[in-house]
C-alpha cells in the first residue's frame, strides 16, 4: 500500500515538474511555430542568474528570483529579435539556429567551469511532512501547488486578457490574426519572453532539488520536447495531460526497472508518438502537414 501512495504522490509531483518545464516550450511553439531548442539553455541561464544574484551580489532570495526571471525574459526577447526572427518560417533553420544558441550557451557555461556540486540553490522552506504515511519535503509541495496555480493562471491569462487572446489567435490562424490587427512579429516576441520566463520559473522551482549542472539543460530540453510531442506540438491542454502520462510512466519505470531507464521512457515516447500519430494526443495540425 505504501508503495502505491509513494508512486501516486511522487508521480504527481514529477508530472507537475514536467508540465512546468514543457509549458514554456509549448507556448513558444504554439504561438510562433518556432521550436525553441534553446529552452534548456534558458532554464540553466536563469538558475545561474539567481545563483549569482544570491551568492555573488548577496541579494535576498525573493528579489533575486524576480530579477532573474525578468532578465531571462529579456534574454529570450533578444534571442528572438536578433536571430530567430530572421529565420522564421524556415523550419529547419529555426531548429538549427535555436539549437546553436542553446549549445553555445550551455557549452559556454561548461567551459566556464560550471559543473559539479558547487552550484546549488537553497530550498524555499526546509522540512518534511507526511502525506498518507509518505515523507515529502515541503519544497516539493510548493512545486506541486505553484505548478497547479501556474497552469490555472495560464488558462485564465490566455482566455481573459488581450495579450493572451492575441497569442491564442495567432496560434490558431496567423493570417486571420494579422487581418484583425495583431502584430504577429511583436506577439511572437511576447510569446518568446513568456516562454523564457516560464523556463526561468521552472528552473527556480526545480533547481533547488538538485545541483545546477549543464547536463540538466539537455535533459530539460529532451523532456520538454517529449511532453510537447506526446501532447501535440502547440496544444497546451495536451502538454499538461502528456506531462502526467510521461511523469507517471517515468516514476513507474524508476520504481520497477531502475533510474537508468527514466530518460529511455521519454525518448521512446517521442519516437513512438511521432511514428504513430505525429500530431500527438491533442495536436490541431492537419494530418497532411506533418506526414505524407
Amino acid at each position, binding site marked *: 500500500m505504501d508503495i502505491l501512495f509513494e508512486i501516486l504522490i511522487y508521480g504527481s509531483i514529477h508530472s507537475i515538474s514536467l508540465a512546468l518545464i514543457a509549458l514554456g516550450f509549448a507556448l513558444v511553439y504554439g504561438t510562433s511555430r518556432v521550436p525553441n531548442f534553446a529552452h534548456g539553455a534558458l532554464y540553466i541561464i536563469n538558475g545561474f542568474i539567481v545563483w549569482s544574484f544570491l551568492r555573488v551580489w548577496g541579494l535576498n532570495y525573493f528579489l533575486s528570483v524576480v530579477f532573474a526571471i525578468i532578465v531571462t525574459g529579456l534574454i529570450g526577447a533578444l534571442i528572438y529579435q536578433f536571430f530567430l526572427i530572421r529565420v522564421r518560417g524556415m*523550419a529547419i*533553420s529555426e*531548429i538549427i539556429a535555436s539549437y*546553436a544558441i542553446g*549549445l553555445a550557451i550551455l557549452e559556454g557555461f561548461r*567551459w566556464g567551469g560550471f559543473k559539479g556540486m558547487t552550484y546549488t540553490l537553497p530550498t524555499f522552506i526546509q522540512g518534511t511532512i507526511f502525506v498518507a504515511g509518505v515523507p515529502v519535503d515541503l519544497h516539493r509541495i510548493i512545486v506541486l501547488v505553484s505548478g497547479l496555480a501556474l497552469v490555472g493562471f495560464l488558462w485564465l491569462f490566455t482566455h481573459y486578457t488581450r495579450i493572451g487572446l492575441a497569442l491564442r489567435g495567432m496560434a490558431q490562424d496567423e493570417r486571420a490574426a494579422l487581418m484583425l490587427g495583431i502584430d504577429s512579429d511583436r506577439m511572437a516576441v511576447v510569446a518568446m519572453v513568456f516562454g523564457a520566463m516560464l523556463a526561468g520559473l521552472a528552473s527556480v522551482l526545480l533547481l533547488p532539488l538538485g545541483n545546477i549542472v549543464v547536463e540538466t539543460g539537455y535533459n530539460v530540453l529532451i523532456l520538454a520536447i517529449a511532453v510537447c510531442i506526446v501532447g501535440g506540438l502547440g496544444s497546451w491542454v495536451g502538454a499538461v495531460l502528456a506531462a502526467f502520462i510521461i511523469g507517471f510512466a517515468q516514476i513507474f519505470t524508476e520504481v520497477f526497472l531502475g533510474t537508468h531507464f527514466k530518460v529511455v521512457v521519454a525518448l*521512446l515516447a517521442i519516437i513512438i508518438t511521432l511514428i504513430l500519430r505525429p500530431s500527438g494526443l491533442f495536436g490541431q495540425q492537419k494530418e497532411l502537414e*506533418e*506526414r505524407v
Partner: protein
Amino acid sequence: MNATHAQRRRERLDRGLKVRSEGIYALMSWRELVYLTLPRLILIAGLLILPFLMPTAYWQRVISIVCIYALLALSFDFLAHFVGLVSLGGAFFIGTGGYLTAILNTSFGLPPLLTIPIATVFGAVICTLLLLPCLPLRGVYFAIVTLMYPLLLMRVIEALDILGGTDGIVGIDSFANRWIEQYFIICMVLLFLFGMRRVVNQDLGLVLRAVKDNDQAVRASGISITYYKTIAVFISSAMGCLAGAYLVHLYMWAGLSTFALDFSILPIAATVIGGAGTLVGPVLGAFILVPISELLREFGTLRIVFYAIILLAFIVFRSEGIMVYGQRKYHQFEKWTKV
C-alpha cells in the same frame, strides 16, 4: 528623385566562357577545357597531396577525422537538400556502423578489409529499417526523431550494460600502415563526392528532388515516394556507417562517444558554411571547420561554443554558404546597369 540622377542596379550575367564550355565545343579549346576541369583537378590533387603537407602525424590524423566529417556532411547534404529529409542523426549512422565493425572485428575476428564493407552495407540496412517508420514524417518531425535516435541507443546501451556498456569495446585492429589508413578515407571521400554528383543528376536524383519539392505531385504520377526515400536513406546512411566503421578502426575503440552530438552538429555546420545543396560545399566546410576546432582543442568545450556561433552566424546572416558564392563568382560576372 530627380531625373538627372540615374538609378542603377546590379546585373548578373553568365560568363561567355561558361556558356561556351557547356556544349561539346568545350573539347576544342584548351581554355574551355581548363575552365571545366581546373576546379575539379585542384580539389582532387589537393586532397591527394594534403597528407604530405602535414607537418606531424597528429595533423595527418586530423585529416582522417576531417574526411569522416566530410562523409557525414555529404550524407546530410544529400538527404536534406536533394530529398528534403533533414536528418539530425549523423551520430546514429556513425554509432551503428562503428559498433557493427567493433563486433565483427572482436567477436568474429574479421580483418578491416572485410569489416568495413560489411558494416557499411549492413549498418545502412539497419539504419534504414529503423528509420523506415519515420519516413512519412516531414520537416521538423523527421528532424526531431532522428535527433532522438542516437540519444536513445546511447541510453539503452548504458542502461542494459550491453556491448561493453560505458567502457565500450576495446582491442579493435588498426590499419596495416598509416598510408593505407590515410588514403583509404581520402579516396572514399572523393569517390562518394563525385559519385553523388552523378547520382543526383540521374533519373533517381530527379525523382528525389521532385519528392523534395512536391511529394504529392510525385505520388500523383504513380511513383512510390516511400520507395525512393528508402533508397535515399540507404545511400545516406551507408556513407555515415562507412565513416563510423573507419572511425572505430582508426581509434581502435568503439564506445558511447560514437553517438556523441558532435557527429550530428558538426556536419550540419559544415554544410551550412560550405554551401547547402552543392555537395562539394559540405566537404569544403568540413575541411575548414574541423581543423579550426582541432586548433581550439586546448580550450575544451569552448570549441563547441565557437562552432555553434559560426553556425548561427552563417545560418542567420549568410545562409548561402561559401561554395554557392564561389560558384557564382566563377560562372558569372556582375555589372551596373541603368534602370
